[in-house]
């Protein structure tokens, strides 16, 4: 998977409000699918489906402990996306500074 494809998956993954809520929950600490389903009053298959999307986008990592899979947040892909958006943020910051300077010099 190329870096660009991975980033696209990240956007797709975080576009869903339930998955964003799952990420927020996992930031509080690792959990297994059963615990997450109980927390979200959702079916375990539904939660597992969301977790699979998050895992494929590498936003969560799973570790097998005995017979259970425990999920935890992997912060790296979101930082990568943030780095990409940083180009736009910096563009507006420097452009507006330049606009201000131009107008106030005249």
């Amino acid at each position: 998977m190329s870096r660009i494809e991975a980033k696209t998956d990240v956007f797709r993954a975080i576009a869903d409000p339930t998955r964003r809520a799952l990420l927020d929950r996992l930031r509080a600490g690792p959990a297994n699918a059963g615990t997450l389903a109980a927390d979200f009053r959702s079916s375990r298959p539904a939660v597992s489906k969301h977790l699979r999307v998050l895992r494929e986008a590498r936003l969560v990592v799973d570790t097998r402990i005995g017979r259970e899979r425990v999920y935890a947040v992997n912060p790296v892909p979101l930082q990568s996306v943030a780095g990409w958006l940083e180009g736009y943020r910096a563009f507006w910051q420097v452009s507006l500074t330049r606009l201000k300077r131009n107008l106030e010099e005249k």
Partner: protein
Amino acid sequence: MSEIKTHARAVADVIDGLIVASVEIARTPERVFQALSSREIVDWWVNPGVFDTREWSGDVRVGGRWHASGIARGAPYSLEGEFLEVDPPRKLVQTWHRQGTPGAPSTLTYMLEPIAGGTRLTVRHAGIAAPDQRNNMSAGWRTSCDRLSEILPTRKG
């Protein structure tokens, strides 16, 4: 005009693909609006040799089109869009699309409000699409903006 803040600020919302930026300018809203909606854009979307907007044209009315082109890191680029809301000197809303890229355009909103000694300009750039659609422009701008960031703090605003 000591009330006017010296620096522009900009923040990114990663989840929504949104940038919000603001700056205070010691000029009237009418004067600032003119700079946002005229060929003056080539004077501030520019960093010579790195990111250089050479042309801008626009039919500044609701439904009118705008077009900008230039050179970013040696490669030509072309932007275009449509004006959605034209309310001088308070608000200007336009779509923003890089020619030759797939995906829906993003939306650029300028809001101007009078403050003591000048104008507060707020920019909201929303719906910035996934990286595979905008990667090239982003890369060009990131480099140009990084270099501008290095230069600008050493100069007086």
